[in-house]
């Protein structure tokens, strides 16, 4: 939860700062999405060996945090796992900022269950009934399953705090689509979801809780979890989340990952973003479990 995250982030920031070349004379402030924070960290750690003049300080906190910081003009690059909303763009313009969007990779949003859970595949409609407002799946037996270790049979729905980009994307991609199909009344989450403060907390909780189901970026998946195979329509063959299925966009809940700069990037920031889009930068992203923007062959 929050305190754990703060400690983790400050440690992460400290490590990045300490690994910076002392000769660096330009500091890029980079903040936002928890989904992107690991790869942003890896980029920041490697970049000084490419350009020792530039140091990058990375912190997480969620897409909302990064975008809020961009609007308030306190970061150079904001990381986001969702697009900026119209309202946010308007707010940014009002405060004199001009956010420019850059797609830096793709991420498969995986649905996790406990490793003892016998479920294998779920469709968007079933996910809608589990996660959505007015959905009628509240027990695992409603799906015809009996989950070992889950005596109460209750589905424990694990979600994210409401300004997380992962939360917003899941809501838009899965719940709005289920609402359109008439499966649930409204394209939003049901009441009583446990709103975790970070992808890592979702993973930790689902690992420990046999009754639980949650979602997060694929890069956060561990061996102690089971990844659900997802189909967009009932009856379609399902697609498992992986870097490959995210790259070719066949996995139905894959989303672009963004970096926002204030105005068209120039100087050090331009150099950094160009390097991120280069083969070297994209290979770091791929190694962290995300899908690159263009085909790369990595060592």
């Amino acid at each position, binding site marked *: 939860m929050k305190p754990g995250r703060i400690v983790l982030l400050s440690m992460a920031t400290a490590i990045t700062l300490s690994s910076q070349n002392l000769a660096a004379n330009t500091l890029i402030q980079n903040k936002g999405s928890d989904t992107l924070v690991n790869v942003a960290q890896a980029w920041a750690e490697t970049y000084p060996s490419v350009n020792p003049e530039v140091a990058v300080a990375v912190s997480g906190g969620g897409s909302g945090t990064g975008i809020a910081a961009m609007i308030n003009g306190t970061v150079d690059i904001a990381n986001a796992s969702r697009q900026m909303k119209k309202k946010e763009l308007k707010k940014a313009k009002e405060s004199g900022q001009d956010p420019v969007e850059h797609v830096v990779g793709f991420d498969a949003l995986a649905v996790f269950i406990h490793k003892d859970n016998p479920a294998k595949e779920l469709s968007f409609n079933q996910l809608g009934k589990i996660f959505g407002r007015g959905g009628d799946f509240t027990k695992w037996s409603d799906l015809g399953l009996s989950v070992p270790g889950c005596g109460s049979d209750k589905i424990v729905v694990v979600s994210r705090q409401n300004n997380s980009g992962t939360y917003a994307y899941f809501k838009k991609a899965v719940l709005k689509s289920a609402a359109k199909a008439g499966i649930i009344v409204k394209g939003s989450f049901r009441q009583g979801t*446990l709103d975790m*403060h970070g992808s890592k907390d979702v993973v930790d909780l689902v690992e420990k809780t046999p009754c639980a189901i949650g979602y997060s970026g694929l890069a956060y998946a561990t061996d102690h979890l089971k990844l659900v195979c997802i189909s967009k329509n009932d009856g379609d063959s399902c697609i498992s989340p992986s870097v490959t299925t995210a790259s070719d966009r066949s996995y139905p809940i894959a989303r672009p990952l963004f970096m926002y700069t204030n105005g068209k990037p120039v100087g050090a920031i331009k150099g950094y973003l160009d390097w991120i889009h280069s083969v070297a930068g994209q290979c770091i992203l791929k190694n962290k479990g995300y899908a690159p923007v263009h085909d790369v062959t990595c060592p």
Partner: protein
Amino acid sequence: MIRSSRQSAGNLPDINQRNAAWYIDKLVQYLVFLSGISAIVLIVGIFIFVTIEGLGFLFEDFSFREFFLSPWWEPTDDDEPTYGILALMAGTASVTGLAMLVAIPFSLGSAIYIAEFATGRKREYLKILIELLAAIPSVVWGFIGLTIMNPLIIDIFDVPVGLNILNAGIILGLMAAPIMTSISEDALKAVPDRYREAAEALGGTRWQVIYKTILPAAKNGLLGGVLLGVGRGFGETMAVLMATGHAINIPGSVFDSVRALTATIAAELGETAVGSPHYQALFTIGIFLFSITFIINLTADLIVRGIRKS
């Protein structure tokens, strides 16, 4: 009079003379005055600040019905954001309620023991230990809830998740108990000894003396102590954030996860754009919390003062 007599003494310094000592005297006078009224200035300042930040929401997006009667808190929805705090109020109220059920017997028991039974050293040690208990940081309590109580509750009650009302209620009860104990102990000590002597003279046993004479005589002070505990529970943030499970929910049992008003502000304020309706709505929750705790503490204070006078 004094001044003139001193002046007439001649060899004493004139205290009207504006030397360094005079300036220091004046300076200290003003500094002490400023410290004296600082509490008032701060509380008024904070209230004004919170109100100004929340004002935009109160005038534009605020609907009394939605805010207090809707259980849906979805401030980030693109199409129609809803700002209902009913479920959050239910969360805060249920946790505080359970905390009081835990804390009242505990604190009343220890207050009676300290005030009526313990003597000498034992009594002093107990008082110091209870004050130490009050000094444990709330994040440490939250940590206990997260790492010790959570698996314990899962094991004992066979529920899927141990972060719930029961967990937070017990933690919060233990946090509120020390302050309730000290206030209750003061109230019991304030009962004059002649009450005890009279009751004992009538042949009352120790328990009869306490139950029939001392508790009724101290009831206002005890009530004030309980109310201060309630205020503590209402305002507590960190421990509640960590132990409740942070789920927007109108609870049906103590094993349901809930979310408190304070925890919502703590979790969301850092990540909203300054000045957005969401930001202002969080400040409106702040105004609401401030008003409630203000009323609770004021009532408690008036009750406690009431008995001191009589």
